[in-house]
């Protein structure tokens, strides 16, 4: 292919635009055909601008026999969710979707060298049965890789609807333990950490700090009870004592009214009065309905951890460790916002498919799905070590961050919590304890 200078610079600009937009297929078409820029590029086809850097060499692979790998993101729109306490925590409309787009772009950068092309399709619905039916329809048409952002029952319904097919579901959202344990499915992988992983990560750090006397505050939602149960298990595993447990009854009322803090300032100190001597208040409020009211308002001057204050998560937008800076920057350029844990969990799922396709050099799910579960599979995901799927329940092993709203405080597993195979298995249910029977031993 030969270009004159103006074309090359414009091509460089088009390249960047396409990369930003994740439009790799358009890029292939553009480079492979050696065509002039499409009219759809609009203002980007204007004559070369001064800031345009040096030309980009042409390294495209001829578009012969491209292996296509479509990935579906299935989203359950959950209208029953209340808005979070802080305006800062309101989920963006593309929560998770942007993570998928970045992973598709990352997969395709590798794919262009191997003649593999990844694409993303999104289906979403507030009706679980519609979502399940649509996923099933697409799997019947040959789709093999489904990333799901949904509640636990919907994930199970999807898994069961496609159980006899050559397809795999990635759970990127639900922390529920039963999905990995008694209700586990052999065709489901979990990139979202489980509640036990999150609470074990927290309990290890509190053990390292020697903050062993906990005051447990539990919200009214079923998830709050589930998280509290996980906290209690972690407390007994790592030698903590829950000196008192109190249920926080909460009536949300109008959450966006002017004022309201005056009453909270009265309410929280009263609620936290006369607790036996404790070192740390542990709040269980997964729905983010009241937990953030606790820091700086407790009767005694105590740090708050759990789902508010210091909390455990798979990702945080301030993480710069292990090359995280470039990863965060790439995401921000693509999405125009910070990366959230759901984005990260979805990214890991889509990248898992990409990594498997790269290594096996095929788009055949019959080869890729078993490979994901094999000991040879490993995912690099900006956590300082390789991540692998647990052979007994399909859960992705991963270090867990402990963070405040602004920055990470530490990363678990903590030093000194040892394991005979991998220290990552000190977080969550380990092989000898699992109730999952669906996976071959």
């Amino acid at each position, binding site marked *: 292919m030969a270009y004159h200078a103006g074309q090359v610079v414009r091509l460089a600009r088009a390249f960047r635009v396409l990369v930003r937009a994740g439009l790799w297929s358009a890029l292939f078409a553009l480079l492979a055909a050696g065509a002039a820029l499409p009219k759809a590029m609009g203002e980007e086809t204007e004559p070369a601008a001064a800031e345009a850097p*040096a030309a*980009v060499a*042409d390294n495209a692979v001829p578009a012969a026999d491209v292996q296509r790998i479509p990935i579906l993101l299935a989203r359950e729109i959950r209208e029953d969710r209340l808005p979070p306490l802080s305006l800062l925590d309101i989920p963006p409309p593309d929560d998770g979707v942007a993570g998928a787009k970045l992973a598709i772009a990352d997969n395709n*950068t*590798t794919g262009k060298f191997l003649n593999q092309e990844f694409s993303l399709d999104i289906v979403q619905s507030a009706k679980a049965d519609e979502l399940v039916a649509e996923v099933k329809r697409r799997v019947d048409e040959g789709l093999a890789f489904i990333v799901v952002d949904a509640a636990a029952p919907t994930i199970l319904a999807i898994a069961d609807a496609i159980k006899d097919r050559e397809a795999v579901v990635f759970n990127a959202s639900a922390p529920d333990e039963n999905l990995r344990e008694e209700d586990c499915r052999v065709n489901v992988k979990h990139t979202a950490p489980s509640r036990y992983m999150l609470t074990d990560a927290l309990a290890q750090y509190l053990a390292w700090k020697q903050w062993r006397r906990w005051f447990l505050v539990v919200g009214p939602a079923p998830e709050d009870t589930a998280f509290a149960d996980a906290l209690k298990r972690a407390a007994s595993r790592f030698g903590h004592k829950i000196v008192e447990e109190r249920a926080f009854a909460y009536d949300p009322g109008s959450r966006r009214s002017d004022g309201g803090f005056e009453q909270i300032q009265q309410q929280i100190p009263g609620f936290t009065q006369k607790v036996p001597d404790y070192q740390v208040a542990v709040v269980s409020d997964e729905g983010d309905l009241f937990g953030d009211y606790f820091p700086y308002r407790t009767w005694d001057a105590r740090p708050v951890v759990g789902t508010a204050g210091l909390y455990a998560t798979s990702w945080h937008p301030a993480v710069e460790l292990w090359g995280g800076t470039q990863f965060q*920057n*790439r995401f921000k350029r693509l999405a125009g916002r910070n990366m959230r844990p759901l984005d990260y969990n979805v990214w890991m799922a889509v990248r898992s498919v990409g990594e498997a396709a790269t290594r096996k050099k095929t788009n055949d799910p019959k080869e890729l799905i078993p490979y994901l579960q094999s000991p040879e599979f*490993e995912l*690099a995901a900006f956590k*300082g070590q390789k991540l692998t799927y647990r052979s007994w329940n399909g859960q992705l092993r991963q270090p867990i961050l402990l963070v405040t709203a602004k920055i990470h405080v530490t990363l678990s597993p903590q030093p000194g919590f040892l394991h005979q195979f991998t220290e990552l298995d000190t977080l969550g249910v380990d092989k000898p304890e699992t109730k999952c029977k669906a996976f071959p031993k």
Partner: protein
Amino acid sequence: MNKKTLALAQVAAISVFMLGAPSAHAYRVFVSNEKENTISVIDSEKLEVIHTIKTGNRPRGIIMANEGKWVIVCASDDNTMQVFDAKTYEYVKDLPSGPDPELPILHTSGNPLYVSNEDDNLVTVVDIFKGTVLLDVPVGVEPEGMGISPDGKVLVNTSETTNMAHFIDTSTLKTTENVLVDNRPRVAQFTPDGKQVWVSAEIGGSVSIIDVATHKVSNKIKFEIAGITADAIQPMGVRITKDGKKAFVALGPANRVAVIDTATQKVEKYLLVGQRVWNLGFTPDEKLLFTTNGTSNDVSVIDVENLKVVKSIKVGRYPWGVVSAPF
């Protein structure tokens, strides 16, 4: 000073004399400190820091250029490279790069320079004398390691998230081959005969040896250290002696440098160094090997002939790269 300490001091002096070369072979060792925005300058004979150069933000990859007169360092967070005078330590000029330059390497003829830009999936080709960008070469996601063949004809760049070694023809600046290696490849180093490229993979925990003629991975070296989990063995810096006989591989949070016999491609020895050992640099006479130890804020000095760690020297925060030149 009592007799005993005097005797000890003499022993120490003798051993320093034996290990350090005569003054004709003293070198300046430049260590970039990623979180301190400085370069520590070490005298390789005294084995102490003799000067600290202020740099731009987040100095990482560091090389000598212009016949040893210049030190070039990537100021990653300033999206530029900086040139310092190797003798006076004065700032000379900036060189252009792409966003987040990480690792530069010179063509064997001394110019141009190739730099990986971690944030832009590009390798930038820069004329160091004119200070201009000649071309951007698209590579994989998060370009990182840079190696050049002894004849200067082939450039190898690794991409951390694409997990490939990209072979680039330096005359056409086109990628000729893309070789898949293990996860998160970091450093690419040609053997002196130009027949192999050794590529470390931080997350994969291996060093892939790529046969240059066939572009196939001929062997993967794995590491096993008693009492250290496989997760903590994260190969990073790779250096091979000029005679091609020994390779040294930094193993990150395993806090060890592996010594490999290149003939058998087996690990001979593990040398205990500082924490999260990152990059390696020989003195020009290859008597000493310096290691940057990221989290213990020091460099370890390895006596190459005797394969012993002889000293650790405190430098700045998060030492990253290391290079040396004669006084």
